[in-house]
């Protein structure tokens, strides 16, 4: 049975200026033990998708479609049932370790909380388990640290605590939303490696959200490239990075700094800005920034081309895009 099957997920946010379609007709699936990367720039709907999976979207929002966790649709769950899923079968790590922990409780208290809630452990058992978890995520001297408050820990250590907290109940799915963006570069690799190791040891499925193609290519089995709230390119990581096809994915790749490119070399950019979610174009959302755009792109939604069973691209001008190098389209 597929562990997680998201079908035609559409999220509409009510804003002061009117409804904003943050995510449109997004579908993807995840098997046990698999890792999925969701990549795209700010405002493309990555975090909204993650929050929708956890049913933690802001109150003034509307979610359509299906989120099937082992064939049960989470969108039909009661709030009480969702509380039994959150932190228990699905857990999440957030972008901001500095503000994601409650400043007035010890880290021990915060790690013990889901254990007592979902596993029904008593105080001593939860304490022992929290010690084990803190040790497992690499917090030095957990016996002393367990009594610390978040402000007494560095950003990297706080993110380790967040990981311990998320893993405490052995969830089926771990969602990591830009878990290393706020950290020093030297710490980023350690944290990603830690998540990677823990996930494979426990056989968890991982959804890793990032705007960094490098992070995604090294850490995932499958990739979902998002733009303007919908998927533009999906497939197995090795297939996609073997043949980057969508003009947007090529643009992301061109914008990445590469080793040995010289200090005076300019990074390529994708001209323009992300589309206004309030006034999405009728056709392709990438239309006004795309170097390959034609009139057709403006008027009709792009069809999904299945290049092979492990690689699909939503683009009108797929034949033009195929085989193009990123530097041919941008610079």
């Amino acid at each position, binding site marked *: 049975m597929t562990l997680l099957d998201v079908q035609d997920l559409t999220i509409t946010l009510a804003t002061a200026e009117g409804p904003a379609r943050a995510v449109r007709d997004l579908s993807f699936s995840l098997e046990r033990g698999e890792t999925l990367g969701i990549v795209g720039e700010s405002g493309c709907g990555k975090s909204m998708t993650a929050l929708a999976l*956890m049913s*933690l979207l802001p109150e003034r929002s509307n979610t359509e479609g299906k989120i099937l966790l082992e064939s049960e649709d989470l969108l039909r769950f009661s709030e009480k049932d969702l*509380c039994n899923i959150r932190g228990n079968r699905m857990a999440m790590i957030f972008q901001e370790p500095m*503000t994601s922990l*409650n400043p007035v409780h010890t880290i021990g208290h915060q790690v013990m909380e*889901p254990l007592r809630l979902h596993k029904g452990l008593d105080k001593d058992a939860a304490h022992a388990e929290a010690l084990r978890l803190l040790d497992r995520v690499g917090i030095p001297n957990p016996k002393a640290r367990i009594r610390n408050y978040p402000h007494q820990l560095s950003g990297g250590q706080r993110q380790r605590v*967040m990981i311990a907290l998320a893993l405490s109940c052995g969830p089926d799915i771990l969602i990591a939303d830009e878990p290393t963006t706020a950290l020093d570069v030297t710490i980023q690799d350690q944290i990603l490696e830690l998540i990677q190791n823990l996930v494979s040891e426990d056989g968890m499925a991982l959804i890793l959200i990032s705007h960094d193609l490098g992070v995604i290519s090294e850490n995932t089995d499958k990739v979902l490239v998002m733009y303007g709230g919908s998927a533009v390119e999906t497939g197995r990581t090795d297939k996609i990075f073997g043949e980057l096809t969508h003009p947007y994915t090529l643009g992301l790749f061109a914008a990445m700094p590469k080793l040995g490119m010289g200090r005076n070399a300019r990074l390529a950019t994708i001209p323009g800005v992300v589309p206004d979610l309030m006034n999405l174009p009728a056709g392709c959302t990438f239309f006004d920034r795309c170097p390959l755009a034609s009139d057709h792109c403006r008027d009709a939604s792009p069809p999904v081309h299945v290049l092979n069973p492990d690689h699909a691209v939503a683009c009108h001008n797929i034949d033009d895009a195929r085989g193009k190098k990123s530097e041919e389209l941008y610079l």
Partner: protein
Amino acid sequence: MSIFIAKRLLTLIATLIGASMVIFLVMEILPGDPALVILGVEATDEMVAALTKELGLDRPAPERYWTWISGLLQGEMGTSYAYKVPVWELVEGALWITIPLAIMSIILSIILALIIGLYAAAHHNKAGDVALMGFSQLGISVPNFWLALLLILLFSIQLRWFPAGGFPGWNEGFFVCIVALLLPAISLATVVGAILARITRSSVLEVYREDYVRTARSKGLSQRATLWLHVLRNALIPVLTVTGIQFSALLTGTVVVENVFHIPGLGSLVLKAINNRDTIVVENVVLLLATMVIMTNFVVDILYAVVDPRLKAHDI
């Protein structure tokens, strides 16, 4: 912790010295001669001069200031010019009315504020929230002496549940005294409670937007458990600040309500003393009030550190 307290004690002493000087100076500048007020307009110049000498008011101001302060250090407040009794005797009775009244009022206010503030925040922008915030606006706007009159009309004259005024004295029994102070406390607590309720509501709503609240929800805590376990303690910090300020205001600013209910508290005492130019009473009472305000701030500072562990690391 001990460094924190020591630092605070030094500040307290410095503030009190400053306050005592200001109080003394203001009373010096204040027009009106105590001797003249005591003797009346028909007194001869000789009589006034004799009484001035007897009261010690003919000596230079610095000497009188020193006499006052050195007396206080030995636990002596001096003798009232108008009543010829030790100042402490006048102050003591009033103090044991004003302090219990302020404590009752602040407790009622906090209960009112937590119930209204939390309910309004939990029902943000819904009918209950809008109605309660409307009422709290009304509570802030209503002058407390007018509310006091309405309470007397309803509970004392119509329903006859509470006395309309007066204070029996603590030796008449604890319960009757509490009953006598209840209506004044309610009229004071309505305004303070309304202010605190609004602060509680906005503070809770602000904390709800914090990342750690989302973390708590992602652990599987219910909306209600998140409020009690993660939101409330963080939201209390600004509420605590305003509670401290309001408690100080209750200690020093109850004179109008005391008069409506004919309660002989510190406010009434200091008002009478000013009218009598009984400067020694005024000076002592005002300094006492200043001390109580500073002590309140001191307690609030310690409570901050109890609520928020980050403050312990920085200041203590």
